[in-house]
């Protein structure tokens, strides 16, 4: 008896495990047996982890545009099946999920991943496996030089940094204090700012770092306050931009505070409250579609994304939504030029012939250009006035 009582436990555990595994097997089987009538497009986004502020709105843009295309009859009459995996912002995971979409799910194109580091990892794999890849990297290394299978939609960190530095130059700000998060996003931005600053006659007189999750960033704010910097530039995702506003207000920091596009969100106003007044961000147009000139070619599409997103998710879109949305716009335009079946090869070839006006800018794609036109004015400077974003250019 005693013997029995002791040994039932592992058996029970195994039974539990078996029960747990059954639904997994079923799900795997279910996805494998899907028919041929659909066109599969994959998405890999950082839905969790430090880059999720990018990945979550990107995934929403992806779902939103696919539903829209399907409602209108699909791509050349075939419905799109969107398959999304989370990369957690981890390069190893991004590479695994990319191979999974290409090899197991047999997609024609893969949209994402969200960060530069992950995108640099999947680029060579895309060319090796010959699958269309539209990354969302902030670095121009993705498309300079152009490789056959890799496209990129976001305006790069370089575009954003140049936008802000141009404004500093115009406003006579020659010395700035740079505050960047100790993560991939902050590090990438800080590098570009430091590299481009001399071209605009701007000197980075202080550079401070912090962890994105730090509870208090007063010491770093004081270092900038004590320096000869005329303005502070913050390059970080939330919550740090809000905490810096609070800490700066508490220690009487009176100089202007500029933020990168990661803080371009209603959250900065809601969370920062009175402290957010007078703060600047460099934003993609999507946060303020009404700021575009009436005859701006981007205005209709930006307004459409803004309103569709608001209708579906009950909040204003984060600007990164346009990254994946634009990727699908390009694919949609390319599909229209394909007369035969849509394959990886035919899609890739067609993509190199389209010109698309998207939420991020204008894409004039060709064998020599796989990204947005650098001349399109995709960024706008916004300032918080009376608890609202106002254009300040």
């Amino acid at each position, binding site marked *: 008896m005693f013997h029995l009582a002791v040994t039932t436990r592992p058996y029970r555990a195994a039974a539990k495990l078996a029960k747990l595994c059954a639904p997994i097997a079923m799900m795997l089987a279910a996805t494998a047996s899907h028919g041929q009538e659909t066109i599969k497009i994959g998405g890999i986004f950082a839905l969790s982890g430090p880059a*999720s502020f990018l990945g979550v709105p990107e995934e929403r843009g992806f779902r939103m545009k696919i539903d829209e295309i399907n409602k209108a009859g699909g791509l050349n009459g075939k419905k799109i099946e969107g398959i999304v995996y989370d990369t957690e912002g981890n390069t190893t995971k991004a590479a695994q999920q990319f191979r999974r979409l290409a090899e197991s799910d047999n997609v024609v194109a893969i949209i994402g991943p969200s960060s530069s580091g992950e995108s640099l990892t999947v680029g060579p794999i895309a060319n090796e496996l010959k699958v269309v890849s539209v990354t969302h990297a902030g670095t121009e290394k993705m498309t300079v030089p152009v490789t056959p299978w890799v496209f990129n939609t976001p305006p790069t960190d370089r575009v954003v940094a140049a936008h802000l530095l141009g404004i500093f130059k115009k406003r006579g700000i020659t010395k700035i204090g740079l505050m960047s998060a100790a993560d991939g996003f902050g590090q990438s931005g800080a590098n570009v700012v430091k590299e481009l600053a001399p071209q605009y006659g701007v000197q980075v007189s202080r550079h*401070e770092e912090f962890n994105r999750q*730090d509870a208090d960033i007063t010491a770093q704010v004081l270092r900038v306050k004590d320096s000869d910097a005329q303005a502070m530039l913050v390059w970080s995702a939330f*919550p740090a931009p809000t905490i810096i506003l609070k800490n700066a207000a508490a220690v009487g920091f009176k100089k202007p505070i500029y933020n990168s596009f990661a803080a371009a969100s209603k959250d900065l106003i809601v969370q920062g409250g009175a402290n957010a007044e007078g703060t600047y961000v460099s934003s993609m147009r999507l946060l303020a579609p009404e700021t575009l000139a009436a005859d701006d070619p981007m205005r209709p599409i930006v307004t459409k994304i803004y309103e569709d997103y608001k209708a579906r998710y009950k909040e204003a879109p984060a600007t990164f939504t346009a990254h994946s949305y634009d990727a699908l716009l390009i694919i949609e335009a390319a599909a229209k030029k394909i007369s035969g079946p849509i394959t990886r090869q035919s899609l890739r070839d067609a993509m190199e012939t389209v010109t698309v006006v998207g939420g991020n800018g204008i894409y004039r794609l060709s064998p020599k250009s796989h990204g947005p036109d650098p001349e399109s004015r995709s960024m706008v400077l916004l300032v918080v006035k009376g608890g609202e974003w106002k254009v300040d250019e």
Partner: protein
Amino acid sequence: MLGQIVVSGITIGAIYALIAIGFTIVFATNRVVNFAHGEFVMAGGMLYAYFTGVHHVPIAPAFLLAAVLSGVIAWVVYQVGLSDVDRDNHIAQVMITLGAGIALKGAAQVWLGKDTLFPPAFSGPASVAIGPLTVSSQALWIAGGLLVFLLALQVLLKYTKLGASMRAVSLNHYAATLMGISPGRAAAMAFVMAGVIGGAAGGLLAPLASTHYDNGIFLAIKGFAAAIVGGIGSPLGAVVGGLVLGLTESLAAGYVSSVYKDVVSLALLLFVLILRPQGLLGRALPQKL
């Protein structure tokens, strides 16, 4: 500038201390490093934000509810995960707390959302001027909370039967069992207390530093470090460790390098461990033979 940096360091230190206290109580009675503890703190912050944000519960009841629910969560973690696992298999227990922590993080992600939230501060003016220094009023609440919990814990451990039984278990749980004390009950109570204090820490911290489902492990590592520096097992040590760590980070960021502030504080920790392995206020336990 120095004064203000010290204020910042004490604020950060008080947060670490509040987290470290929970680590220390569980360790003292269970001899287990509870990797789920950071998730109790996260849960407290997220629940406080959930009640105030979604259900518009007033601040005081929302905070109390968040702390109590975190205590319940901790109790469930103990009862479901740990209560019938061999007490001497520490590594299995550590892995169970790790798994429970991951599960809690996953649960928060599904049920409380993925947004970074700043719930309302406890009292009106954002900051208070003390002489030439400004102190965030939420930081005063945190410091006050730390004092209250420290005193309550000392009283509970010294003057109540439950406290005496917990101390007995922490000294020698076999002997305690022989004296008719139930180590399981003491262990469960330790988890509940850690959950309540951790949840309260999360609620106190959230208005200042925000709350997010993914923050638990970051908080856990800071709290674990503070507990070890101070001497794990001693609530007072947790407070000392937290303050030492917070001040070091802040001073390093202000005067050495903000890039390497964590390197400076971790180097200090290694230094303490090498010179005084039991921590600043810890008793050197005889190693088993």
